[in-house]
């Protein structure tokens, strides 16, 4: 790499050093503090294992761990069992309405599950839920059959919003797979069902497995739906228990840190398992090269199948958004939309015009998410450049560090940030920076994997040509690589912006009243049962999100979802 002649002193190392320092600040320091805090005596600061003893011997702390694992496993199973056939139907068959299914599933994908959880409270609370009331009216029963306030209710809601992971990963694979192998099987006398079972499904296995693990991890680290659904149900999972460690006085940050450790270990472990399983087998058939892809004819079954296929988007999108809209348009939800004077735009006026808190929260959300997206993309691109171009020793370690936040649940990351940056020398708590830093860190892996993938596709010869002609490394990067990256950078930016906008689980610990964001305002309002306000804020947030997604689609096409699912 040193053959290029530098006419000016190469100052690029400063840039690299800065990028590495920022990476350390965002990832290593908080996680280091987290581990250190878990070993500290809260009063004396001396080293102790007491926090672990407290966290893992009490019955009320152990039950949530079992619940978390049960919930994550169930969610992953449901998501895969629903997402895989759905993907196959959309990608490989002549299912009626498949063109409509895709945007609906994308809508489910960008809908935060805590908003879905709120909507499902309106739909399926045992007595007041709209669906239950409908049931009770139709069948003259006292109340309907569904009870959202249960562990199963929570599993159901999270699974609904997990299906898109498997769906987009599996469609991605199936769309690249040519029909030749399936044709071969058919020629040899295999029926449609058998071919799918014996040929298509195994080829899609890595995607299915990734979908399973993503759903599992997501369910394990989610805070919103359990907070909304499980506290009333008198059930706990690890994330709600972590929240309780915090919200009580005095907060038990040390015990919380200890309690968070297994969550971290489980996620790291699962990711390693995934790498192992997928890394060992090679599926070169899915090469992305040409080949004919034909849609399978479903015949007479196509209409019944279409009905079934629309059930997940109906539950994840149509009904929830309908419920949110109905609630947001009522002065007081419990009175019903037809009570005199109850149907109103009051809450929209309140959120947008009258209430300074909600107004600033909306502005904050946009600002912080945009800032985080910008920092994440710049940082990720620099790190990816270092790694892909092998400019520094141990580049792979850097790549690993940049990907590490992926396995850190939002709550755990927040605890790390609080431990690291709520005391001198670096006092970020109470400022916007701690939220921006947390968002940047949480979604850095998305930006990094996006950036690395694109950089790998740009031949280093282009830069070398420029450098041979006398350009410094920075100049070459600026003039050659960056323009080639532009489209990819934009998609990376959006892929960070969207999840940052709806981030709840870290925000809830890191915000202060001066740095309220949409999600924390919603969380505050929900705690006193202000559901009309919550619904309105949620819908406003989704209007912004869908607008951004539409813009993204305009520029980037379908890569948007795929990138997000892969990251």
């Amino acid at each position, binding site marked *: 790499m040193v053959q290029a002649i530098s006419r000016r002193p190469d100052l690029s190392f400063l840039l690299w050093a800065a990028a590495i320092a920022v990476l350390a600040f965002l990832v290593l320091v908080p996680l280091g503090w987290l581990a250190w805090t878990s070993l500290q005596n809260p009063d004396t600061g001396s080293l102790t294992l007491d926090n672990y003893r407290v966290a893992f011997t009490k019955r009320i702390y152990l039950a949530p761990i079992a619940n978390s694992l049960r919930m994550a496993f169930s969610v992953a199973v449901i998501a895969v069992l629903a997402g895989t056939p759905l993907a196959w139907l959309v990608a490989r068959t002549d299912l009626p309405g498949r063109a409509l299914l895709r945007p609906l599933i994308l809508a489910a994908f960008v809908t935060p599950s805590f908003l879905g959880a709120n909507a499902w409270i309106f739909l399926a609370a045992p007595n007041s839920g709209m669906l239950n009331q409908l049931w009770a009216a139709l069948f003259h029963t006292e109340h309907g059959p569904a009870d959202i306030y249960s562990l199963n209710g929570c599993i159901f809601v999270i699974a609904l919003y997990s299906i898109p992971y498997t769906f987009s990963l599996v469609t991605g694979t199936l769309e690249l797979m040519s029909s030749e192998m399936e044709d071969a099987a058919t020629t040899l006398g295999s029926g449609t069902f058998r071919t799918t079972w014996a040929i298509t499904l195994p080829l899609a296995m890595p995607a299915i497995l990734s979908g399973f693990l993503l759903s599992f991890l997501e369910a394990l680290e989610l805070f919103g739906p359990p907070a909304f659904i499980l*506290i009333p149900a008198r059930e706990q999972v690890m994330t709600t228990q972590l929240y309780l460690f915090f*919200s009580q006085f*005095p*907060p038990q940050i040390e015990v919380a840190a200890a309690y968070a450790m297994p969550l971290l270990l489980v996620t790291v472990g699962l990711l390693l398992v995934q790498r192992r399983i997928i890394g060992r087998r090679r599926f070169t058939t899915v090469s992305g090269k040409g080949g004919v892809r034909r849609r399978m004819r479903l015949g007479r079954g196509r209409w019944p199948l279409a009905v079934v296929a629309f059930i997940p988007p109906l539950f994840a999108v149509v009904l929830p958004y309908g419920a949110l809209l109905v609630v947001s348009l009522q002065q*007081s939800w419990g009175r019903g939309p037809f009570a005199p004077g109850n149907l109103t735009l009051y809450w929209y006026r309140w959120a947008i015009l009258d209430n300074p808190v909600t107004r600033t929260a909306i502005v904050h959300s946009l600002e912080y998410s945009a800032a985080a997206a910008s920092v994440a993309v710049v940082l990720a691109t620099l790190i990816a450049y270092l790694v892909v171009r092998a400019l520094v020793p141990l580049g792979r370690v850097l790549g690993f560090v940049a990907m590490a936040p992926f396995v850190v649940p939002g709550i755990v990351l927040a605890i790390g940030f609080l431990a690291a940056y709520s005391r001198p020398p670096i006092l970020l708590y109470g400022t916007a920076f701690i939220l921006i830093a947390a968002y940047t860190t949480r979604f850095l892996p998305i930006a990094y994997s996006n950036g690395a993938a694109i950089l790998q596709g740009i031949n280093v010869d282009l830069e070398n040509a420029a450098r041979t002609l006398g350009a410094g490394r920075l100049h070459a990067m600026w003039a050659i690589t960056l323009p080639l990256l532009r489209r990819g950078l934009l998609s990376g930016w959006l892929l960070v912006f969207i999840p940052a906008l709806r981030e709840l689980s870290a925000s809830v610990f890191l915000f202060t009243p001066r740095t309220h964001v949409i999600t924390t305002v919603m969380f*505050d309002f929900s705690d*006193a*049962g202000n559901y009309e*306000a919550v619904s309105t804020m949620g819908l406003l947030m989704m209007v912004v999100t869908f607008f951004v997604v539409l813009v993204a689609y305009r520029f980037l096409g379908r890569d948007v979802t795929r990138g997000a699912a892969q990251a």
Partner: protein
Amino acid sequence: MNRRDFLRWTGGSVALVSVGGVGGLLEACGGAPAGSGPSKPVEKDVSKLYALAKQDGSVTWWTAHYEQSAAETMAAAFKKKYPGIEVNLLRQTAQVINTRLNQELKAGGTECDVFCSTDEGHYPPLIKGGYLDQYTPPDLDLIPKDFQNLNPDGYYHLGAIGFNVINFRSDKVTTPPKQWKDLLDAQWSGKITTGHPGFSGYVGQWVTAMLRTYGDQYLKDLAKNKPKINRSVNDTVTDIVAGERQVGSGPDNFSLAKKASGSPIDIVFPTDGAVIVPGPVGILKASKRINAARLFTNFMYSKEYSEALVSTSNYPLRSDVSPATGVPTIDKVKYIRNTVDQLTKDLPDAIAKWRDIMGV
């Protein structure tokens, strides 16, 4: 049971209140029409404080006293009386804002200027840490004497009063529970809603009082009736209005506000004693907007504030403002009160017991 030792506020009785600065004697009379002739409490001239407060420009107010829209009403009334000073409002449950406040203080400073919890036990540690401003608002003496001197040293004062009562769905429940013990009856199984003492100050007060009065068995029996547990006490109102649950241990104010707006909800003051929740207000000593904070605190003894309280179905602090129709004056209410010491000492245990028995 301590009752009537804290607040005595009779419709017709006259409390003589000395007015410090002016030196005169004014009559503060009860809100009920029966009476000993009109009296007109005169608010002090705070124009100097107002001018200084305007330079501060805003005040950051954290409160757990009442629910969101009531808090917004109070903030609006303040801005109307004192234009030019913005109110940054944060409403959260008592335990949550207290934890947040302490966390921020530990981290080197807080944005909060005026701190209103519903758990009086939050204040002694703050006083001990030297965080509170020792300040007596000039108009404090305009409220009944028994309302004054919540803290004899003047580190905090009374900012609101509420009660834990039994609230219920008025169109479905014909014979609501009359006392707290009635909630243990099997007929309410699956029909009860409560808040969580680990979040809500109101609920903390209630659980502390129940444990002291009836022992642990109360919670164990309550758990058998499978209550729905929310975070804030105000969520019980939502549950009842929405028809999710039928009876609750809830707040008087928000329940009555919903009743006033036409929702099928009503309250019963339990015969074994409603649990009173005096809402303290304290100013942070290190506040960068200390004048605005003081003006805001003094505002709580203005007529406008009491009127705003009544308009949101809260009890007024001033005796020249009548309570909302349909509620008994405070002296007619049989209530249980937790002392500061009891809250400081017993509430943490009460929360731990609740967690153990209820599972969350």
